[in-house]
């Protein structure tokens, strides 16, 4: 028993501290966080609806690629028209590039014409760490039963070039269409690409 505890302790000491990443096919982590309008948002409140999570940093050039080309806003609007909830999450810590308060977030959304359901202020990184969000953008699709169905990149071409968007497979759009049709998601994970999420230390 003592040996076992020692071994476990040794294993824990050896392991790099890590959060358990969410797994496609399993329940997505619930969260409770304030949005840009001061309203509390949780995943569980949207049970019965498909939810998209989008990690955002307004100053990241990869985010700029997809907002500049209107790719993100068009996907947000299309999702909304199908009753899909779209939550944009900003996990940049206070003092880090792209960190926003509620007023700043609303000004940003007005400027880019964001069509998301809500913009979540996750400056302490709790939601980001729960989802192991690494990049901006980093995308997650959760079905009406709260099961994670897709995680990864917004599309298939890792670049900052707007011209690549029409050539790329838009993974979130594809996953939403497949979920709507009751099909399996054909590409359930892809490696996300973008800027690192600017977590606090």
């Amino acid at each position, binding site marked *: 028993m003592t040996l076992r505890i020692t071994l476990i302790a040794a294993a824990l000491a050896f392991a790099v501290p890590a959060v358990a990443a969410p797994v496609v096919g399993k329940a997505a982590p619930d969260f409770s966080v304030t949005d840009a309008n001061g309203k509390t948002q949780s995943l569980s409140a949207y049970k019965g609806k498909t939810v998209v999570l989008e990690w955002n940093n307004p100053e990241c050039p990869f985010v700029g690629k997809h907002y500049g080309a209107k790719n993100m806003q068009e996907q947000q609007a299309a999702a909304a028209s199908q009753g899909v909830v779209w939550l944009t999450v900003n996990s940049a810590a206070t003092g880090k590039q792209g960190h926003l308060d509620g007023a700043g977030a609303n000004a940003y959304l007005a400027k880019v014409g964001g069509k998301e359901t809500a913009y979540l202020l996750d400056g302490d990184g709790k939601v980001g760490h729960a989802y192991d969000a690494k990049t901006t953008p980093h995308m997650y699709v959760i079905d009406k039963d709260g099961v994670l169905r897709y995680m990864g990149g917004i599309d298939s071409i890792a670049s900052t070039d707007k011209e690549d968007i029409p050539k790329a497979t838009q993974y979130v759009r594809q996953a939403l269409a497949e979920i709507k049709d009751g099909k399996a998601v054909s590409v359930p994970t892809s490696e996300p690409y973008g*800027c690192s999420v600017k977590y606090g230390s």
Partner: protein
Amino acid sequence: MTRNPRARSFAFATIAGLIGAIAAPLYAADDGDHVSVELISEHTALAPGQSQQLGILLRHEPHWHTYWINPGDSGLPTTLAWTLPPGVKAQEIAWPMPKRFDVGGLYNFGYDGEAVLPVAVSVPADAAPGSKAHIAVDAKWLVCREECIPGRKTMTLDLPVAPPTDPPKPDGRWTMQFSRARLAEPQATAWKATNAADGDRIVVTLRGPSLPAADGLDAFVAERKLVDNKPPRIKHEGDALIVDFAKSEYFGTPPESFDLVLTQPSAAGVRGWRVQVPFAAKAAP
């Protein structure tokens, strides 16, 4: 120069570069943003039938970095698109050993300070001595501190084709850069590598001559979506060196083999090794 038929393609490449710059306003206007980027040649001329070294010289401002072929958790590798005279061929970048950057618990792999991305070019045997070879490259990179800025630059070099009587000489301006580039290249090894993918771990076992001590050793996998980007656990076990990675959460179809690079700081600078690891789902020692 104007009588040279390649002058036209040179002008065309430049205009294409300008159009590219206008069409892509996300890019830095030039390379003045945190990294200077230059196309250099080890020799002042090309020799017919030879392979020679060109390089992209990257000079980063302090705290800024660009990326390795596998950039890690975020970022983008530098890409090069060459426009070369007929018959001249450029190889892929011979990626120097990367450094690990810890960005708030996320990991990136790349280069800071001064680095050269070497590219071997082969010159056809029938290249006419006395003619000029016009070489153009469109480089794209992402330079990051915490924030990131994409950059793009089209660079050109006009190198004479040397006659057999007067073989190309090293260009004194870049001798040191190319010497350093050779030192920064991970050296090929005769190690025998086996790999076992066990649950959520990918464990590489290395055996062979002159394995480095585990102390200070780091390891990188060139292929993406294979291993997690956190530092692996590295230890000696008998005559073997064990490199134990967490599997990538984006792991999909495994490759037939992958390229492992090991680095270790020493008093004489960082040393690096490379070994190709066959991918096997089960251990095959």
